[in-house]
């Protein structure tokens, strides 16, 4: 019962691509680190999030990306 609930919560929040959740957590940690060192860290999140989205979209359409490269 608890296991099924945990799986339901996981799939509800994390969805089809778990890499997104891991990458978002890493990008927030990097942002916090940059902020702590006094850098203008606000430029980081939009760039990192768009990179995460691009990778996830590519992964969701893997066949088109891999085949398009071949002659």
């Amino acid at each position: 019962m608890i296991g099924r609930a945990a799986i339901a919560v996981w799939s509800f929040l994390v969805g089809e691509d778990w890499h997104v959740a891991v990458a978002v957590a890493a990008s927030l940690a990097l942002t916090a680190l940059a902020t702590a060192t006094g850098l203008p860290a606000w430029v980081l999140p939009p760039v990192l999030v768009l990179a995460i989205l691009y990778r996830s979209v590519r992964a969701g359409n893997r066949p088109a990306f891999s085949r398009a490269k071949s002659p």
Partner: protein
Amino acid sequence: MSGAQAGLAVSVFLASAVEVVEAFTIVLAVGSSRQWSSALAGVGAALAALAAVVAIAGPALVGIPIGVLRLIVGGLLLIFGLQWLRKAILRAAGAKALHDELAIFAEEREAAALAPAARDFDSYGFAISFKAVLLEGLEVAFIVVTFGANRGEVPLAAAAAALAVALVVLVGLAARAPLARVPENAMKFAVGVLLTTFGVFWSSEGAGTSWPGGEAVLAPLLLLILAASLAMVRDLRQRRTETATVSA
């Protein structure tokens, strides 16, 4: 109403409308093909469960320090928004099937017709309606609670969701058919962009970042994410065309 409040209300309204359209299709299919009283009892039970979730989670989250709340809840909202946006981009590029209410309605009616008939209380109709409203509604509840808690505006978020529910149900009852003409896929794309924008903004603030211009940065941030998403759709379509050409 400030720009951020308007953005919050529009985001919650659109997200809620999309989810209610989906739940409405299933309830309509089950109710019209089996028994309305049981289907509506399922809707009522699910709405009560959802109201309890919002009533408990909303105040509980508001009590958490704003920095921690924005980091954790903003981060979750960002992950959630990216999943919506990813699916919307794949759908817009033709890499994933579009959401088709008429097809879902037909499938649900077919499944309802195959289920054993009920004499008094139709447990099948109750269960399907309950599950549809609860699952679609949980997404709405999550958005209401996260948006509302981050801005300390749970009542505004709940009101926007309630307005969307009322509007979709009224239009649906008037049409007495699945709301297939609602531009659901475009709305999902818009919601994905909005959730991602607010998620980036709040989670970054939670991580200690100060945005230049404060909340005024939301508009350019939204435009950046929208432009990048549309560019990804175009890129994906082009690659799919190239793939099809190579395969042919």
